[in-house]
């Protein structure tokens, strides 16, 4: 540690820290524009000037390394004057359009001009104007407001790995641009809006819709992928206006995928806002009472094993638990949360988790991707892999991939092959990547759903597990065998045991007429055309998507922003979301609907409040007893498990892996209902296969 004296207060900071970090450690606020904790240091805004003893002039603290005994002064007349001068320079070309600027009220430049500016400008000449750029359907630009801090350039280059933005030209003509006009191709482009300290980059879909101080802010969890990104839902007047990420270093750092951020207009369209019942092929709207009575009448006399439920990808654990309890009380074990037909090793929790945790990627030193395309399946996790790749330096983090990348991965990958036969080659040492894994201290294997949704998934997983044990990826200190999920509800459902019982039907056989009554809990991405006409379909969900069209009875539920819910992310982290707005019309929270129906049916579920339900969930699986804090991840363990011989799990099939996500912007009912996402889909199209570098 290095001892630095900040305004007379000694603080100890790690060697290599910057003066700015030392000042922050001492609790001093240093104004800044270009400096961002998660980006490289640029040092071009000069707002963070401080005085250092024996330095001839003020220094930019963001890029000034600390030395033992260094004395820093953050509040002297020199510093104050320097800040005022920098502020005056920055404002020379900045328009005075705060009243019509979307950043107004949450603008670093505005705040710091108040806090550190001089209040007057001596500049009388013409201001410069810069043409706006078209960066695609998500990011709106007002380039005249830009102060050239280059945070966006550094974000897109370093974090997103899509170096499309740059600072071209020089001096008064310098501007941020893509040079050749094109839409940004990153799935993380929305974060540019957050990193921009001024109103140059703002959200295009919500432009001119609301002011930052008007929002009611509610903590929630993103359900667009299985990462469990911590978000804040910002609503006004019962309408979700905006979603921004919250900081959680163990999950999403401070990033959010574009789908999580911009599919919110889908929450307002194609919604189911009242119950519907199909009578003689014609659908008509009914009251809740009539709907539940009609449904109970249909259930009457149907044996329990002829009733089944399939859960979709966006469900909260509460509704999953309620529907499971209801079906079990009726004597049914026809439950399945795997609408994509995936296979998991459910003998231990570690069989279906991202065991190393998301932050474990930072420790990995070799990575094998098996049948997964993280860039589309979990963009923020992909950024984490890229961060590790960049931090490790040239060749420091070798990444092998089995499967064909359907887009640029944003880091160098060695494509080892396209089918699971490569796994056998690595196991036998025939493939050179075996040596890479062998030599790594913390090797990591990520198995994705391109592998797990195949018929030979057990064999692929067994081979991966054998490989993991062989290369030291599974040790008491290091859990490097990871499953990358794509569905937000999946791990929670698996934790609740939302799987077919010994005699139960799985999703595929339920769809093929294995049950008489099929309850779809937000399950739209199943092969609905397989359902025979005589099957009675109950749809409990929030969007009038594919399943609602087939349903015989529709019960309108709440979307993830409209209910308090528990979600377990792919790493097994139990996280709570809170209700930001109320569901539209007659729609209700899903578990309450199920609870109400159970009463009509005469099998009343043993909980009346959310707390009772959650207590019950904790009994079903103790992981739910924990309340979502960052330190509370119950890791799975594979320590005791021996590696089984891969032969027992069946044969590997040579067929190549197919990507599970064809169109990143259209993967679930909310994103399919969103016009913004539809436009993105049109602009970016289905990503063509790109050969790895």
């Amino acid at each position, binding site marked *: 540690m290095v001892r630095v004296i900040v305004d007379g207060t000694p603080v100890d900071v790690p060697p290599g820290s910057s003066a700015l970090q030392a000042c922050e450690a001492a609790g001093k606020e240093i104004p800044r524009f270009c400096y961002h904790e998660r980006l490289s240091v640029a040092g071009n805004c000069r707002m963070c000037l401080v005085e250092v003893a024996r330095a001839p002039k003020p220094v930019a603290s963001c890029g000034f390394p600390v030395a033992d005994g260094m004395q820093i002064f953050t509040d002297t007349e020199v510093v104050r004057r320097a800040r005022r001068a920098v502020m005056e320079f920055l404002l020379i070309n900045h328009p005075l359009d705060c009243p019509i600027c979307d950043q107004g009220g949450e603008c670093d430049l505005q705040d710091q001009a108040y806090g550190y500016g001089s209040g007057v400008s001596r500049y009388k000449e013409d201001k410069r104007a810069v043409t706006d750029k078209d960066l695609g359907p998500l990011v709106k630009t007002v380039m005249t407001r830009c102060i050239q801090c280059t945070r966006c350039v550094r974000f897109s280059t370093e974090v997103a790995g899509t170096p499309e933005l740059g600072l071209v*030209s020089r001096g008064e003509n310098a501007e941020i641009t893509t040079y050749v006009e094109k839409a940004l191709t990153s799935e993380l482009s929305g974060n540019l809006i957050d990193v921009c300290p001024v109103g140059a980059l703002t959200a295009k879909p919500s432009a001119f819709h609301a002011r930052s101080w008007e929002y009611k802010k509610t903590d929630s969890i993103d359900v667009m992928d299985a990462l469990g990104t911590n978000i804040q839902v910002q609503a006004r007047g019962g309408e979700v206006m905006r979603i921004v990420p919250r900081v959680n270093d163990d999950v999403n750092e401070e990033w959010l995928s574009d789908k999580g951020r911009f599919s919110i207009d889908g929450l307002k369209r194609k919604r189911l806002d009242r119950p519907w019942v199909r009578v003689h092929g014609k659908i008509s709207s009914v009251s809740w009472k009539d709907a539940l009575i009609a449904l109970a009448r249909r259930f009457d006399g149907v044996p329990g094993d002829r009733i089944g439920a399939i859960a979709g990808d966006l469900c909260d654990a509460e509704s999953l638990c309620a529907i499971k309890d209801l079906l079990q009380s009726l004597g049914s074990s026809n439950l399945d949360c795997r609408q994509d037909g995936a296979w998991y090793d459910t003998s231990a929790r570690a069989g279906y988790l991202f065991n190393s945790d998301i932050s474990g990627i930072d420790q990995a030193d070799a990575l094998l991707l098996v049948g997964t395309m993280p860039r589309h399946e979990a963009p923020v996790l992909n950024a984490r892999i890229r961060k590790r790749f960049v931090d490790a330096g040239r060749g420091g983090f070798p990444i092998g991939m089995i499967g064909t990348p359907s887009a640029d991965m944003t880091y160098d990958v060695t494509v080892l092959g396209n089918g699971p036969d490569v796994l056998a080659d690595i196991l036998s040492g025939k493939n050179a990547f075996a040596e890479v894994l062998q030599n790594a201290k913390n090797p990591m294997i990520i198995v994705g759903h391109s592998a797990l949704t195949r018929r030979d998934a057990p064999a692929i997983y067994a081979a991966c597990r054998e490989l993991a044990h062989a290369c030291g990826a599974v040790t008491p200190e290091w859990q490097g065998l990871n499953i990358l999920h794509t569905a937000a509800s999946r791990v929670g459902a698996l934790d609740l045991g939302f799987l077919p019982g010994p005699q139960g039907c799985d999703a595929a056989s339920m769809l093929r007429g294995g049950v008489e009554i099929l309850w779809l809990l937000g399950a739209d991405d199943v092969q609905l055309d397989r359902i025979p006409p005589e099957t009675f379909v109950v749809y409990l969900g929030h969007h009038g998507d594919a399943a609602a069209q087939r349903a015989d009875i529709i019960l309108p539920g709440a979307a993830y922003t409209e209910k308090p819910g528990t979600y377990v992310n792919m790493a097994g982290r139990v996280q709570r979301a809170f209700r930001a707005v109320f569901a539209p019309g007659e729609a209700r929270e899903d578990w309450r609907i199920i609870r109400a129906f159970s009463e009509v049916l005469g099998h009343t579920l043993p909980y009346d409040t959310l707390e009772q339900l959650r207590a019950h969930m904790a009994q079903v699986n103790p992981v739910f007893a924990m309340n979502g804090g960052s330190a509370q991840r119950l890791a799975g363990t594979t320590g005791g498990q021996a590696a089984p011989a891969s032969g027992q799990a069946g044969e590997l099939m040579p067929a190549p892996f197919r990507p599970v996500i064809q169109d990143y912007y259209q993967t679930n009912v909310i994103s399919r209902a969103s016009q913004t996402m539809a436009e993105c889909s049109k602009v970016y199209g289905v990503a063509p296969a790109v050969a790895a570098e």
Partner: protein
Amino acid sequence: MSTAWTPAEQPDSFVFDSASEAEIAGVLSKYPEERKASAVMPLLYIAQRQMGRVTGSAWVPVVAMDVIAQRLGMAAMRVYEVASFYTMFNTRPIGRYHLQVCTTTPCWLRGSDDVVEACQKATGIQHFGETSADGLFTMTEVECLGACANAPILQVDDDFYEDMNAERTAKVIAELRAGRRPTPGPMIDRNVSAPEGGRKTLLSSSTADQE
């Protein structure tokens, strides 16, 4: 006020010719393979010269920058940034002869305004950055060329014409128009930056003679 970097007409493709390839091989040999991005500026210059050789207009089209980015394994945006930052790279087509008039203080004090005026008169160009109607000349205002002792300077492509005035400027341009390149250097009777008419000091051969 804003920039003029968005070039209007772009060729569809760009390929380095054999002469350029020979130069590139020499440039790349100076850098380790994993640091070859360092060669971006020489390559931009080679591309610009090739354009001048082949089309008569020495500029770097976007496709050429893309080719360079690919060749050097760097993001195209990084090449755009470099090319647009340096005024020596022309990101839009220019005339066959690039008249670069230095108007920084020493040259200005020594009459660069006359040189500018002479250029305008001889070529018909109205403002800096414009190309003459016959496509032969582009006049650019440049900052200090570092030859202040011989001010004012007119740089034509890579050559300095020094100690210029209106008359000499007109003459140089007339020569260029005729397809000849006058000998670069001082336009008056002096050797490089030495005094006009020959030496004024250190006339004798040894210091002993002066005592």
